[in-house]
Structure formats: structure tokens, C-alpha cells
């Protein structure tokens, strides 16, 4: 990829992040500063910060990729996440703030009076943090390698280094500013191309997102095979391909189904919920997905901890409400990318690496 703006842009964002972080360095003096930003963060700042940290690579790259692959059922992911924030607002935000505790394990100990529970809670927080880190670093590596052609490891190391430095030096105060900035940056970075994409789609004569014969290549594409597989072509015939085979498609050729990749090809399945695809779809799967996403969002320790930085319970509530709005606004975008990706990057359905659609 030879886009000359990419590397300077990455450098610029990194520098701004570090600059904002070091501004926060001046403000980190007491434990209260460091851990809970002296409890003076206003609802709008806090909400933007939560939004910025929550709307991570998994949210936009992943959700867009899933929608590209599987269609409408995947919309339950963003809805589940947003509903989790509502659950936080209804049940958790104000009482958590009012307990006066400093961290989540602290809160457990205060409410339930057990030292052992505190240790257990701490172990869980660390575990969840770790689980969360892995896909973030994957996202960073993937982005850098897709966009700038740099090695995967460099992206992960760069992100890890900058964030660690920011947190260690500035604490909560610094982080709040950084994350708020990043929310607005991400929103803009996704919204602007999306607008152009839609205009392009309109100008193109609004090609069908779901042509009856399945996804179709827009432009002449050459695919290089990396792993042997069996392809099912548009007319039903099957072809076995080996490593390093080159396949050329012209505009209008239907995208072949690859035996090693699971994706939804039929127009009806992609458009309508409850299609007969995959191993165990169906109501049970949908409901367990909803439950998982919404309970999971409710329990995220790094989000819950933000509530402590509010001046009081009411502000905590207002913050959550603003987060709900910001998150909802944001999630309109990956859906768009996933759907338009079906038209413009159908080759990703062959590799299965649909996170790259954005």
C-alpha cells in the first residue's frame, strides 16, 4: 500500500497522545489524583473517555468484519454492548460512585466485608485486563501491517509502549484526556470516509448489496492462494486449489465459497435473521449472545473504575447516559462498513480475515 499520508498520520497521532499524556503528568500529585483524578472529571469528559477506551479495535474492525461475513444476526453485538451500558446506568453507576471506594476490589470489600473477596476480585480484574489486551494488540498489529506494511509486532509494541508510558507518568488524569481525544478522533476517522463511501456508492448507481447470486467482485481481482482448499464457484462446480495458485476474476464474477472459510453467501441468509447457516444458530444462540454481551459490558472493570472519577452519584449517572449516546452514535458506522464491504471488498470473504474491511 503506497499511501504517503499513512506513516506521518500514525506518527502525528502518537505524538499528540504522548503530548496530552504528559500534560496530565503535571496534575498527578496524590493517590487520589492518580487513581481517581481527584474525582473532578465532568460528565462529558468522562463519557468521551469511556467511549474512547471502550470503542476499541474489536468494536469497529471486528464488528464490521462480522457483519460482512454473517449479516444481520451480528447486529446483536453492538446492540448488546449498548444495552450493557444502559444496565450500568440503571443499576450500577450511582451506587458504585457513592460507596466512596477507590477501585473495584475496594468496593467489594466495603460492601461485602471480606478480604478474600477483595483478592478474588483483584485476580479477576487482572485476568479480564489481560483478556482485553490481547485483541487490542492484535488490532494494532493488524492495522499497522495492513495500512503501512510494517511488521505486525511493531504495531503491538508501539501501542503497548505509548500507553504504558502515559499511564505510568500521568495516571487517571492524563488518561482521561487522552481517551476523550481518541474517541473524537476515532469517530471522525470513521465517519468521514463513511460519508465518502456512501456518496461513491450512490454515484456508482447503488450496486446491490445482496445480488441474487451471492457477493460479486466489483473490479478485476487476482487472488493468490496460500492454503490448499476447495472452491465452489458460482455455477456450482468445485475446484481444488493448491498453494501459490493464482486465480483471476473479472468484474461481475461471483465470489467462490472457500471450504476452509465460514461465511454467509446466500442473499436471504445474510439479510434475514435466523438463516440456516453455521453450526448452531437459532434463538438459543442469539439469546446467549445478547446475555453475554450485555452482562459482560456491565462488568468491565476498566469502565466501572471511571465512575469513581465523577464528583458525585448524579454525575456518574449523567456520564453513563452520555456514554450510551456516544456509543450508540459510534456503532452506526461499523454496520455501514460491513454492509458496503459486501459490495466493495468481497474478496475478504475468501480469506476469512474480514476484520480488514475497514
Amino acid at each position, binding site marked *: 500500500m503506497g499511501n504517503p499520508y499513512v506513516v506521518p498520520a500514525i506518527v502525528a497521532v502518537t505524538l499528540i497522545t504522548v503530548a496530552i499524556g504528559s500534560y496530565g503528568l503535571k496534575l498527578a500529585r496524590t493517590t487520589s489524583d492518580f487513581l481517581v483524578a481527584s474525582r473532578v472529571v465532568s460528565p462529558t469528559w468522562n463519557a468521551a473517555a469511556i467511549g474512547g477506551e471502550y470503542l476499541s479495535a474489536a468494536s469497529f474492525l471486528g464488528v464490521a468484519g462480522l457483519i460482512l461475513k454473517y449479516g*444481520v444476526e451480528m447486529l*446483536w453485538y453492538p*446492540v448488546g454492548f449498548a444495552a450493557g451500558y444502559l444496565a450500568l*446506568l440503571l443499576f450500577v453507576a450511582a451506587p458504585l460512585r*457513592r460507596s466512596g471506594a477507590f477501585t473495584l476490589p475496594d468496593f467489594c470489600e466495603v460492601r461485602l466485608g471480606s478480604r478474600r473477596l477483595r483478592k478474588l476480585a483483584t485476580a479477576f480484574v487482572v485476568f479480564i485486563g489481560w483478556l482485553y489486551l490481547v485483541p487490542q494488540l492484535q488490532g494494532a498489529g493488524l492495522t499497522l501491517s495492513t495500512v503501512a506494511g510494517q511488521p505486525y509486532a511493531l504495531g503491538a509494541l508501539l501501542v503497548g509502549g505509548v500507553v504504558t508510558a502515559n499511564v505510568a507518568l500521568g495516571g487517571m488524569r492524563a488518561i482521561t484526556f487522552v481517551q476523550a481525544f481518541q474517541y473524537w478522533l476515532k469517530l471522525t476517522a470513521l465517519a468521514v470516509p463513511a460519508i465518502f463511501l456512501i456518496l461513491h456508492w450512490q454515484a456508482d448507481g447503488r450496486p446491490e448489496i445482496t445480488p441474487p447470486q451471492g457477493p460479486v467482485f466489483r473490479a478485476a481481482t487476482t487472488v493468490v492462494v496460500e492454503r490448499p482448499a476447495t472452491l465452489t464457484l458460482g455455477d456450482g462446480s468445485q475446484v481444488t486449489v493448491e498453494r501459490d495458485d493464482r486465480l483471476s476474476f473479472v468484474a461481475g464474477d461471483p465470489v467462490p465459497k472457500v471450504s476452509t472459510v465460514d461465511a454467509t453467501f446466500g442473499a436471504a441468509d445474510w439479510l434475514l*435473521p435466523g438463516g440456516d447457516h453455521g453450526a448452531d444458530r437459532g*434463538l438459543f444462540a442469539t439469546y446467549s449472545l*445478547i446475555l453475554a454481551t450485555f452482562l459482560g459490558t456491565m462488568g468491565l472493570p476498566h469502565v466501572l473504575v471511571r465512575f469513581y472519577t465523577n464528583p458525585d452519584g448524579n454525575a456518574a*449517572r449523567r456520564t453513563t447516559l452520555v456514554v450510551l449516546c456516544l456509543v450508540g452514535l459510534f456503532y452506526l458506522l461499523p454496520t455501514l462498513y460491513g454492509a458496503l464491504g459486501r459490495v466493495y471488498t468481497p474478496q475478504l470473504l475468501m480469506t476469512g480475515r474480514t476484520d480488514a474491511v475497514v
Partner: protein
Amino acid sequence: MTTSPPRRTRIVLADVTRHDTDHTRAELAEQTQVGEALVRGLVRAQLALALRLALVVAIGLGGLPLLFAVAPQVSGAELFGVGLPWLLLGLAAFPFLAGVGWAYARLAERNEQDFVAVVRRPER
């Protein structure tokens, strides 16, 4: 180790009224029988409100998969050329959730204001 851990301050209600809240705080701090009962009443009222709104969302949003499963003609319906499930899940769900959230924030705040009004009444 001579430094003790930072003190946690438990807040019951802060900044609900701009006026002098010393009496109110003293009243609550005394933990009188009445005070305790009032606080518990408030907590219960907030919980009831939260549960009621949660039910609205559970039925309104959580009922959708069920609806799609039992009524395929609903899934197939189209509005502005886009399938109904896409519009409901990808677009309408978010303002719906935000609206419920906003309703909760307003009603919860009003609960707290009512509570403070009741507690302050003895002073008049």
C-alpha cells in the same frame, strides 16, 4: 508503615440541593430510625424504577429475536428499501436505549429531590 490508606468517604446524596444541607446531612448522619427507613425507602424506589425500565427494554428489544423467529413476514418487511431487522437493530435500537436511559436519569433525580424534600420538612 506509617501512612494509612486514603480514607473512603461514603456519600449518601451530594449536591442534590444548592441550599444549606447541613441539617439534612446531620439528620442522615444521626442514623435515626426514621432516617434509616427513609433511606431504605429511597433505595427501594430507585431499584423499582430501574427494574421497570429494564423490563421495558427486555420486552422491547429482547423480544425481537423471538418476534423474528415466529413471524418471518416481519423479518422480510422493508422500509425505505432496507430490511426491517436491519433498521430496528442497526438504527432504531440505539435511540431507544438512549431514550430509556434519559428517562431513568430524570426520574431517578426526581426521586432523590423528593426524598430530600421529605427529609427537610421537619425543619419548617
